[in-house]
């Protein structure tokens, strides 16, 4: 069951949703779909990792199921949970003499199972994109949990047995590489390293997203952002911030970026006071 027919097809359909993929992104996304393997996307913050999953979902008409990882995320939040309160109520309700065996089987039935994103994605029969966002933020134990889901697309629940995928979801994992992921997890995935786009591609992205901006302005914005990324900043500006900046300048009615304007609107792209000062110094903004 594949959603894309060729690499060029991926490119075109993603472009329709406003996501301009370069060759390696398109190829890898195509392969993830064709080989039915999860796609692990790594790269700095704000290069469009999460956006890729959303674009694939939109392009293929699939629903997006999202699991946002954070430290302390556990099985109960990611996979499934027993509806404890409902189970208690069931037991309370049957106090009057129904056999223990029956109750015992009852309370571990489907009715008392709460789907969490991973299980939900697997049980869906419609096309699904499963986005596991910021895997590196989750604890190492979570990775172990993901292994079964990602390699066999199944979940084992001790009381119920194994639930296999009705239809394989398109899985995207994103990571900011704040910690090294385990080899076992990586081995099961296709890997894509995303970096900040080349100026030419970024220009196209900004033009696609902010069509009302003058080409000259976009060119200057993209070049300035590229220069900012070259500085040793705490947080380099992301693509989303470049787009925001172009929008902000359009809102101000500028069709050209000069030093004064750049200094005045620097807060759109740089969110640390120290970074702003540094950038202003290096680019001698007014």
């Amino acid at each position: 069951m594949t959603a894309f027919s060729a690499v060029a097809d991926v490119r075109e359909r993603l472009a329709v949703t406003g996501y301009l993929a370069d060759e390696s992104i398109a190829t890898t996304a195509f392969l993830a779909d064709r080989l039915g393997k999860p796609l692990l996307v790594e790269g700095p913050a704000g290069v469009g990792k999460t956006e890729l999953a959303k674009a694939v979902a939109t392009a293929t008409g699939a629903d997006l199921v999202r699991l946002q990882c954070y430290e302390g995320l556990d099985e109960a939040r990611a996979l499934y949970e027993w509806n404890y309160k409902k189970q208690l109520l069931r037991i309370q309700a049957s106090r009057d003499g129904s056999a223990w065996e029956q109750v015992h089987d009852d309370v571990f039935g489907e009715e008392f199972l709460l789907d969490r994103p991973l299980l939900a994605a697997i049980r869906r029969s419609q096309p699904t994109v499963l986005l596991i966002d910021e895997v590196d933020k989750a604890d190492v134990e979570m990775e172990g949990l993901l292994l079964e889901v990602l390699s066999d697309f199944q979940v084992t629940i001790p009381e119920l047995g194994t639930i296999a995928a009705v239809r394989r979801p398109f899985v995207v994992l994103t990571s900011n590489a704040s910690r090294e992921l385990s080899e076992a997890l990586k081995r099961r995935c296709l890997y894509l390293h995303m970096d900040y786009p080349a100026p030419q591609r970024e220009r196209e992205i900004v033009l696609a997203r902010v069509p009302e901006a003058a080409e000259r302005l976009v060119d200057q914005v993209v070049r300035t952002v590229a220069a900012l990324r070259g500085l040793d900043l705490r947080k380099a500006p992301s693509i989303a911030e470049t787009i925001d900046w172009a929008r902000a300048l359009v809102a101000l009615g500028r069709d050209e970026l000069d030093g004064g304007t750049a200094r005045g609107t620097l807060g759109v792209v740089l969110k640390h006071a120290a970074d702003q000062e540094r950038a202003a110094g290096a680019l001698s903004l007014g």
Partner: protein
Amino acid sequence: MIAFSGGLRAAGVPVSTGETIDAVAALAAVDTSRRDVVRAALRAALLKNDTHDAAFDRLFDLHFPAQRAERQGPAPDRADGRRSGAENLRDELAEALRQDDDDSVAVALEDAVERWAGIDDERAGSERHHLQRVLRSLDLGQVLHQLMRGSPDRSELQRRLDNAEAHARIEEVLRLLEQLVRAHLHDAEAGTRQEASRPRAGELQDLPVMYAAPDELAALRAAVRPLARRIATRLGRQRRRGRGYLDMRRTMRDSMSSGGVPLTPRMRRRHPCKPDLVVLCDVSGSVAQFAPFTLSLLHALHEEFRRVRSWVFIDGIVEVTDFLHAAAGVVDAHHLLGRRGLVVADGRSDYERALAQFLRRWPGAVTAKTTVLVIGDARNHDRMPALAETKELHRLGRRLYWFNPEPRFEWDTGDSGLSLYAAHATRVFEVSTLRQLGDAVTEIAR
């Protein structure tokens, strides 16, 4: 394909059989007549770490050579080079860079390496040697100059942007050149020596900071912030681990609303203890290289402590808390060393004088809630050790830890009196590498 996987493994890239199968399946799925698609497909299936990029690219070129239609053979190039020399090539390179034409840049650089690196010589020198030869002849400074030249009436911002772009391009060229020289050397030697000597992320953590070379130091600097984030995560987890024990009273009280059935168990919260930290850091010659790392790491972690105050000392002592708070990233050692009051006598570390001065000038800094952290090699240059002062600090504070940036086997050798101090410290840590530093900081923050 199998040979390619084997090559990758030999270059230190872990490739499993499953991944090789994926790669073959991937090749079957894509249009193999396009080289960049094949490259992207193989990269997605085989590479799981961007540090292996260089090895992959080199091997890919080796196993799947590109057809260079536009490139003339080396012989006419060389004859051409005799005539017009470096200038021609420089112009070519500058023009290609300005046009963002990667292929032409690659061709020009290839020419440069072939012409000047002198790798055909009988005995191959070091990578750096060959690179220097190319750079000397090519003179990238001139290329940079050409790139930076623009119309005189452009704005200041425009000029700065052009300059930044030109610098970025030249840096890229340098990187490419380095790669090319390495590849050529590799061909000449058919060995993998260069590959083995590259520092990898895993090993970086275990590099003794005091003996790191300048380029390794740069890599270590970049590693401090991620390390801080990891420690914060680890600490958060440890503090949360075990949600405490059941709070019976609150559970029963809450069960009132559900008719006496305890639906939601209430746990007693554990209060994380955040220590107040006072850091006293020796920055004399022997440990100056290490000090910035520890101080910057601790200040990056300031949220994990109730408060962090830092002093640096040699034979005088000065407070640097505000300076470290304001600085982004790892500070430079010479910023610390330039402080007034740091050197009052001969500029060799004097623990006794520095610590005594600390106790005198900041009597309220250490309280019963304070964890005192002394960082130093305990080398006193044959002066009196600061035993009384250390004892006093330990008495005043809650705990006293000692970080020694020297490897353990050097402790107590020469004028190092570490074991004397150890008697008055809660614990002594060896912190010669970033990994040890991270572990030690986790330990004291708990």
